[in-house]
């Protein structure tokens, strides 16, 4: 176990060392790309919402025109009874 640990420590020491220099613009590039992803995602969500709304409207218009069901007298008060 400790032999294995020693070996791993040896390799760990090889891996450690000074970090490479980070390009000054890295954060900005990443943020720009990330906000582009967010914008595209927002656009896709809006488009989907729009399509869903259009579908609802189309269905409503069709339903109003075609009356494919037996319309119950929803708004009428019963003439007699309770």
């Amino acid at each position, binding site marked *: 176990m400790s032999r294995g640990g020693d070996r791993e420590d040896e390799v760990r020491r090889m891996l450690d060392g000074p970090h490479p220099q980070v390009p000054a613009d890295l954060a900005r590039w*990443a943020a720009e790309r990330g906000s582009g992803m*967010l914008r595209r995602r927002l656009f896709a969500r809006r488009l989907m919402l729009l399509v869903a709304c259009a579908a609802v409207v189309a269905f409503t218009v069709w339903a109003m025109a075609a009356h494919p069901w037996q319309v119950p007298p929803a708004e009428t008060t019963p003439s007699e009874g309770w």
Partner: protein
Amino acid sequence: MWTVRERQTGRERGRAQEFETFVAGAAGRLLHTATLLTAEPMRPPGANPRAQRLLTAALAHTYAQWDRLRGEDPYDRTRRELATRFAHEVWRHHRPRGGLLDPLTPQERLVLVLRLYEGVAEEQTAALIGLPVERVRAVCNRSVATMRGTRRPTARRGTPGPPLGVAR
């Protein structure tokens, strides 16, 4: 009263600031990890374009997820994205590029870097790259032996590879 747009730009600015602080603190180590993965040299500056590209893509993902991290450490999130991206484009990273981990295959590099440089637990490493825990242990031991020179590098597909004494 704030309009929706004002609130949105305010939130964007806050996110950008937090993100910049995070990158300022974490980018050095993350780029080190990425450079170990791509087996590119650490210096001179700019000698690791593949690692920079990999890290930029992973960080962009973290930026896009920033408001939905829900307490998850952005460093862990970025490291996970880095590993996943590397695993997806492994075929691009077979050729030796003059880095420290050149003798290892991309998968061996991924396991070694996650386990020993990043200190990710065996179980998490296994879950991250979709291998059984025993396999992760075996690959890690194999990579350690290769790096210490007690084992010949794994033969690689499609590349001439380092000169071997005896064909496998």
